[in-house]
Every structure is written in C-alpha cells, then in structure tokens.
C-alpha cells in the first residue's frame, strides 16, 4: 500500500520508520446515512455484500438479526439503528464483520469504501457539535479533504445494553 501524502509529510516528525506502523491506523471507510466513518482494518474479519438476515425477536433494537458467514453465525448490528438514525430507504446494507471476545458481529453500513492509512497524530478530538449518539462511539475525527471521517470505536459500538 502506498503511504498517503499525510503520512509522508509527518514522516519528518517520526524518529524511525519502524514506528510508522504504530502511528498510522490502517482504516476501512464506510458510510452511514451519508456520514463517512472508519473502523481499524485490524478489527475487521470480513466484508460481505447483502446477506439474508434472520430477525431475532425481542433482541435489542440495534440488532438487525443473525446471518450465516460460512457456517458461522454472526450477529448483525445495524449502525443506523445503533446511532439512532432513520432506517435505510431501499438499497442493501453491506456487512463489516468484526470480532469481540471470540464472537463475530457484523456492522451493517450503507456503503463500504476503501482502505486508508490514517496517521494517528492527525486524529482530532470530537468536535463539540458532534451529536451525542455519535460522540459515544467515536474515537475522534479525521479531516479528509472536504469531508470529516469519524473513527468508530468498535468496542463501544458493540456495548449494547442487553
């Protein structure tokens, strides 16, 4: 993977090249209701296209259901519902499969974008205007040109009151 411009410019501040891996978060971008977000690639196990999802009655609202990932049952968390956003209108959700304590969860996003290395040093704290629902699951924001990317905290996303 090519280091991005930002990495290159910050390289002078970094004492050794070996430490670059520690200072850069390779991030998978995704979109939820038009908002660009990212999750660390290290947390991602798989990305799936539209899947048939079995509804789970009585489950917390955020749980969209269960899906079959090559013989493994994965609990799908709808990011829109998790963030208190209106339901998706048409279109199909993409699944980003993450793991937590040995259990696989799928995060349902509207779109899955690309993989970007983002320098940790560029991460800015949450702007005070950020919606509380987002703030709760945000590790901070990155400015990508015109757009703002919210770095998602996978642990927090999955901390659903059971």
């Amino acid at each position, binding site marked *: 993977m090519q280091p991005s411009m930002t990495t290159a410019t910050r390289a002078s501040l970094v004492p050794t090249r070996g430490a670059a891996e520690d200072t850069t978060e390779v991030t998978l971008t995704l979109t939820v209701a038009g908002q660009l977000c990212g999750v660390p690639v290290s947390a991602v196990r798989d990305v799936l296209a539209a899947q048939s999802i079995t509804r789970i*009655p009585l489950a917390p609202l955020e749980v969209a259901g269960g899906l079959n990932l090559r*013989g493994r*049952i994965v609990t799908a968390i709808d990011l829109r519902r998790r963030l208190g956003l209106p339901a998706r209108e048409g279109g199909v959700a993409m699944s980003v499969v993450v793991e937590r304590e040995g259990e696989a969860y799928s995060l349902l996003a509207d779109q899955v974008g690309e993989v970007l290395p983002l320098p940790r040093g560029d991460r800015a704290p949450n702007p005070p205007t950020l919606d509380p629902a987002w703030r709760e699951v945000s590790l901070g924001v990155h400015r990508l040109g015109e757009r703002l990317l919210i770095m998602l905290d996978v642990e927090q996303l999955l901390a659903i009151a*059971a």
Partner: protein
Amino acid sequence: MDDLLADFLTETSEGLVALDAALVRLERMPGDAATLSEVFRIVHTIKGTCGFLGLPRLERVAHAAESVLGRYRDGTQPVTQGGITLILAALDAIRAIVAGLEATGSEPAGDDAPLIARLDAAAEGTSAGSEEAAPPAPAATAEPEIGLPEATATVPDGPDPAPQEAAPDATPDAAPTGGAAPPQTIRVSVDVLEDLMMLVSELVLTRNQLLQLARTQGDSAFAVPLQRLSHITTELQEGVMKTRMQPIGNAWAKLPRLVRDLGVELGKKITLEMRGAETELDRQVLELIKDPLTHMVRNSADHGLERPSERLAAGKPEAGRVLLNARHEGGHIVIEIGDDGRGLDAERIRQKVIAQGLATEAELAAMTERELHRFIFRPGFSTAATVTAVSGRGVGMDVVKTNMERIGGTIDIRSRAGQGTCFVIKIPLTLAIVSALIVEAGGERFAIPQTGVLELVRLGGDGMPQLERIKDAPILRLRDRLLPLVNLAALLRLEPAATESRLVVVTQVGSHVFGILVDRVYDTEEIVVKPVAPILRNITMFGGNTILGDGSVIMILDPNGIARASDLGAEGGEAEPEREAARPANLLRSDAATALLLFRAGDAAPKAVPLGLVARLEQVERERIEFVGGRPLVQYRGRLMPLVPLSGQWDAETAPSRQPVLVFSDGDRAMGLLVDEILDVIEERLAVDGAGERPGYLGSVVVAGRVTELLDTAWWLRQAGEDWFAPAAARAAGETRRVLLVEDSAFFRNLVVPALGAAGYVVTAVNDAEEALRLQEAGAGFDAILSDIVLPGMDGLALARHLRQEGPWMHLPLIALSGRAGPGDVEAGREAGFTDYVAKFDREALLESLRQCLEVQVVA
C-alpha cells in the same frame, strides 16, 4: 520425544490418577487386599517401565514406594495413615518428574534422597527418628509396630467402622481392574475425534440439504439411495457422538485425593460422596467444567464445612459431607455440589454488599434470600472471613459462573443457614446435534427441540380439538385436559399472521404441559446447536441458534424460557428465579401463583376455582338437563353426570338456553357445577382469608382487586352424591406449618394444596418419592409429610420405610393419604412407619390428623 516415552507418559498419568483414588480407599479400608494389590501392581508397572526406559530418578522413587507397599501387601506391616501420606508424597514426586519428562523429554534434576530415606524407613519398620520432623509425614512412622486395630484407633483421621464393613462390597469393583485381561480399547487422539465430529456435523447438514431438494423433485431415482444415505448418516452421527461421550466420573477422579488432602490440611473430617458418576456428557463440555467443579468442591470443603468441634456443637455428625450428584434432565445434565456445612452467612453478604456499594440497605431489605445469595457470583466477592491456603486464591464464583454461561449453562445456589449449601449447575449435554421441529410464527421460522414436544394438534374442523377463549386467554381442550396456550407470535412481539394460528405444539416442561400456538409446522431437522451471542443471552426464550439445511440462520426456542415468560411456570423449579430458595423441579406451593377460573353464580360476588381442577368447560343446552329424584343430571359422554347448581337451586325456567357447566373429573367419575357465567382466567397467589366461613367455600381471595370467593371443590364434589370423599367434620385451626405432599395425581394435588393452604399450612407438593428424597437431600425442612401410597417408582410404603431409617426427617409425622383405607391397608401403613392413615380425600380428617400429629410432636 519417542513414541515409547509418549506412551509411557500417558499410561503413567492414568495410573497416577487411579492410584490417588485407590490409596484414599486403602486408607479407609486398610484390610482390603484387592485394593492393595491394585495399588502395588500400578506402582510396580511404573517402576518396571522406567527401568526399561532408563529413567533412574523415577525408578528409585517408585522402587522405594513399592517396597513399602510390598510390606503392606504381605501383611508384614500395618497400613497407617502416615504411611499412606508418605506414598502419596512419593506419587507427587513421581508426578513432578513425569511433568518434567513431558516438558523436556528428560528427567528433571532433583534430590529425592530424603523422601526415599523416609520410605525406606517405613518399609524397614524402623522408627524414622530423624525424619520425624519432616512435615508431610504427621505421626506416620511413630508407631509402626502396632497392629492394625490399634493403629487405626490412634490415627486422627482413621477409617471409621462403617467403610471397613463395606470392604467386601468394594472387592468386586476393584477386582476387574486388578485382573490381567486388557480392555478392548485403543487410544485415539482427541483431535481426530474433534475432526470427525466436525465432518459429521457438516455431513448432517449436507444430508438435510439433499433431503430438502429431493422433496421438491417428487419421485426421483435418488430417493432410495438418499434414504439409505440418510440412515447411515444418522447412525454415523450417533456413533461419533458416542465416542465423545464420557462419564462425568472422569472429571471427578482426582476429587477423592483432593478432599482427603484438604481434610488433613484443614483438620476436618470430610466424606466425599459421588453419585451419578456414570452420567455421560460430551467430552468438550466435560473439559470445560472440570476446573470449575474442582474449585467448587474445594470451596465446599474449605468454606462450607465447619470444623469438627463446631459441627459437634451444632449437633451434627463430626464428619462433614460433600456430595456430588449428577443426573440427566431433558437435554441437560444437572450437577449438584452440596455440603452439609454452615450455609451461606446472609449477614456477612449483606455487610459486604453495602461495603462494596452494590446495593443500598433499602434494596437489600426488599431482596429475597435467594437474590442475596446470588451476590456471591459477583466479581471480587468472597465472604470467607479468613483467606486460607486452600480457597480465596482470587478465583471466585464469578469465574465459575462465567465459565458455565459460556457453554450455555446456568448455576444456581440453595443455601440454608446451619444446614449447608448446594450449587446446582445445569449444562447442555452436548454442544452438538439435536433434533428439532421447525415452525413458523409471525412470519419467522423457529426451531423447537423435539425432546419437549409431546404432540402436534391441528385446531378446528370436525372432531378436532377446539380452541376456546376465556376472556382473552386462549385455552386448548384436548381430550380430558384444558391446556393453557401461548401464542408464539404474540409472545415474541411479532406481527400476527393474516389468518389465525391453527396449529398447536403441545410441549412439556417438567410436569407442566402447555400448547404453543404457531402458524405453520414445516418439518423436523437435525440441527447443530450453537450458543447465541452474549448480547442476546438475556432473551430467555431462545436456547441457541443454528444454520438450517438451506443455509439460513434460525433461532432455537427454549420451552423452559417460554413457560417462564408466559407465567405458566408456576410449577417449574427455575420458573421464578426471583422467588425463594430451595425449590427443586415440579413444586407446587400454595403461595405460588395459580391460574384461577373466575365465574359468577348466585349472587354478584365473583367466585374462583383453580383452573387445574377443572377438566372441561361445557355449554349444555337447557333441554338436555333432566331431573332424576329431584337432582339435575345430564347425559354426558355416554354416562349420566350429576349436576350441582352452585346457587343452591336450578330452575329450567330461568336458566339460560345454553347452561355453562364446570366439569370435574377423575378417572371415570365426573360431575358438573352449574354456574351463571364464566368470567375470566387469571394468575393469582392464593392467599386465602377467613378460611371456611361458609360451607362450599375455602374463604375469599382478592383477585384483580375484587374480593372473590374461593370454591372448596371437595365440598361441592360431595354434593354430587358421589362417594368421593368422607363426610365433613369440624375444621382445624390454622397454623403456619410446613407440609410436604407427595402425590402423583395432579387432581388430588390441586385439591389438597389449596385446602391445606387455606388452613394456614405452607404446602410443598412433589410428584414422587424420589423428588421428596431429593428435597430431603437438599436440606428442606418440613413439619409433616403427607404421602400417597400408590406412587410411580418408589411407593409410599417404601418411602416411609426409607425415611424412618435415617436422616433429618426420621421423626417427622408421616400421614398416608390413600384411596384404599381398609384395616389391612392401615396396618401395612403403620408397619411401614406412617403415623396416621387418612382416606383420600377427607379434608377434615386430614386436617384433624395433621393437627394431632403436630401437637404430639410439640409435646414430645
């Protein structure tokens, strides 16, 4: 490491486990030749093999131990506790060397000389003077010359006479292992079995997929071979499952040694009782519960049991008891780890809860004892006053609980101050394959495990069972029973299907039968049960989830959870976890919620009768009611059924054209109560006030905010003129005494429980003698026991004889309740140990008898 060494290590490890158990046995029964020669043989084999493999250190230790054992076997030296301790120490040394061998492939360095010297001294029978100071040999070799009886008397934890007498019984057990014939087994690596299991699971799923395809194809040429393939797959699956099943005793093998060592270390006398060791479960599950079990036994011995002096002061036998009990129950294995020690200290838990800020005083005050006990499952919560070397090492009950939940199990606790503590673990037998029924409700498919399913019923149509509604509660009238129905879609808050659900899955949970209303039933399918994600674990309606033949995910319903969620579980043991402790399965207590049928008759006040007593609800056409000798009757199911008007009289002129009738039946007998209107079915705790103010009524209860009269069914049954019961006498005064009722007929149970409840007794009802004994085991306390004579399994007479023999219930009043009350029967009852014999069901006689028995007890 070469194969030879690997084999040796495996064999030695197994040998060491067997040795631990055998030595503890030997200590109890020093004269048991079979055990002795078994011990000798194992040590001898270890010694011989290590000589052959060139393991000098191991060989020397084994040799020294063997010499001592040789003396014991030849009878030239008596078996002493000290000697056994020494040999156990030698085994530990061997174990340490073996562990080193396993890790590095060669013997670890170390000096065994002191140990060998002590062993040699013991073998020589010389007083091992200088070694006397060595801690692991307490008072061991001090009196080596003393003959056997004296020696056992001087040893502090010596064998007591009872096990010694039992020695001949133990011989047959020991003999086969001592024999030369090798068992017909081979060693297979666990990985191979695991792979096989996984492949079989896949095969099963593929087979299911094929079957599904074939069904849509109609008459295909594949049908016959596919059928065959299916059969073979099933058999293969069963076979592979079998290879994975292991007796739970395997996980217990190390416990006798553990408990013995603990006893010595803590200065306590502990007997370990293990029941149901042959109960099998999947080895994967077995591995997962091994450590938690060990931890809990350690806990029981350390924290649970008191010191011998405290026990004696409390009037208990000096030796504490730790009981392990395993049994199958549905698709689960239930393991109990109990002790007869001091029980949990509620006060200390309270203090700790407050100190840790887990709850306020007010919250604590509102908690039941059971809720309070459950605090010990919180992380960092240990109530041990002092941290001993044995427990309190930072592994708490919270870890145990987490481990159990990880494999879909539950853990519960029952404790009674002064009587002991019992942990009850319930875990799935296997994490593998079960057969399930696939149903649909509210547009979603669900799997119901076949084990709980009794039958499928289609509603409506001619001659089909009918769905009835009492207010909004759906009820199924199936043959002679009224079954409560649960609408699955409604329970799961799904949108109901366009057409009304017409299929009922009749399900049994414990002794409770109910129907689950679904929209469609597809088929049965073999499913691989997978636990649900942690965030879904609090939805008790689901027991797991799985992937079907068509690749879709499906939730597996847990009938237990459904019964609980729909308040049907008034009888279930775990049905009301928030309620009081010590409630094993199938209990019916008069202070538990009971489904009541509300109706109106005569005056405006609503009346109620337990729904369980009513066999059927009928609407009888007015014209069909006839009068014979001034009594109303109706032809009902080919017989004449007597009718009793609840309001005192029945007038054809004023009666509605379709007369509501509550039908009561037992066996062939039936009677009908004529009422004005059926109102509702409602769940209510039976707290009866003003017992027996008016004939025909047990008293009044408040139901849904209204004072409602509770029908004395027995009284009304007598009005039917049937000779069901003996005539009435005076009522007994109410007392708050605890009574255990052993009665298999739900009908009589439902009669007796409310009647006694109304007289102020707290009644616990169980189905059979075994359950009663389990309660005794669990330390439940009662003031009197009522038992039917004819019971499934152990009958009432046998139960009485058993109870009279020994145990905490030895001196309790025992009253026989029986339909047969001839002089011979009464005599047989008295001989078996019954205090009194009462005809079934003469309420007054029963109350009178109870009163007398309990009075006598107080005087005594």
